[in-house]
């Protein structure tokens, strides 16, 4: 097929949406601020902050993806 699939996509919507920037948030929250959470306190039931924060970051990732999905679907 020689034609570019983008041009035959009949839907008017473009995949570029400002909401997509929200997808960067999980990346920032888990990797870029690493020095900030590389510590033991405040701990949750004995588990150091480093560990339970990253598990909580799962929720951040899910929330961001969900928001972007809801906001960008037709």
């Amino acid at each position, binding site marked *: 097929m020689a034609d*570019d699939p983008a041009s035959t996509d009949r839907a008017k919507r473009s995949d570029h949406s400002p909401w997509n920037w929200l*997808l960067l948030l999980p990346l920032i929250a888990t990797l870029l601020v*690493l020095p900030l959470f590389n510590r033991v306190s405040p701990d949750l*039931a004995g588990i150091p902050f480093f*560990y339970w924060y990253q598990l909580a970051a799962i929720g951040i990732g899910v929330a961001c993806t969900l928001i972007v999905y809801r906001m960008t679907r037709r």
Partner: protein
Amino acid sequence: MFVFVSALGFLAARWRKAEDLEHLDEWGLGGRNFGSWVTWFLIGGDLYTAYTFVAVPALVFGAGAIGFFAVPYTVIVYPMVFLVLIRLWSVSHVHGFVTPADFVRARHDSSTLALLVAITGIVATMPYIALQLVGIEAVLKAMGVTGHLPIIVAFAILAAYTYNSGLRAPALIAFVKDTLIYLVIIVAVIVIPYKLGGWQEIFGAAEQKFAASPNPADGVLLAGPVQLQYATLAFGSALALFSTRTRSPASSPPATAT
């Protein structure tokens, strides 16, 4: 259990019965008709596996905090895949693509590039599968079954029912696998701290062990230079997963990113 799962694999062809299993997209993509829950189980079964269960805990046990990279890695991989996925799926659905190679051929009008993508995909998946087999071997050994024959038999059965039923087989089996995994994790998280005296005890003991070891890079937290390694390991793993796994989402609507 093994017999049950194998039977399930062969019977999977009947599930959500297709008119013609000979169609490649019925075999390869389960008819493009898997709903959200099925896909959730399939991807979960795909992602959380021998690597997660054996290799990563071993790393954490040996080297401490750096082994935890698996958590941020999986956190970032979903948004990344989501970004590309929407486009990949809608275009693939319209044009009847089955693999990323098809997409590449159409988009860039190059059969050579498509061939390279296909080959890369196959080659890149091989070490991953090898690792799975090593994991199985370790488990069997722990059960007292040694030698290569059991592995070969297991793999042969897997190949046979996948050949027979296509993507439906792993999808159905993923239900069983995920349930087992959930069970094990929940039990482990409750029983282990209970038996060992609580999380404080566990982390305290770990801290002592790492303080006593000669390696400066291990520990309950990340030492200075190790932080960069951690971040790049997580990010690199996400990219690797991304490039080898974008085929499976092509089987269902975009409502699968979570």
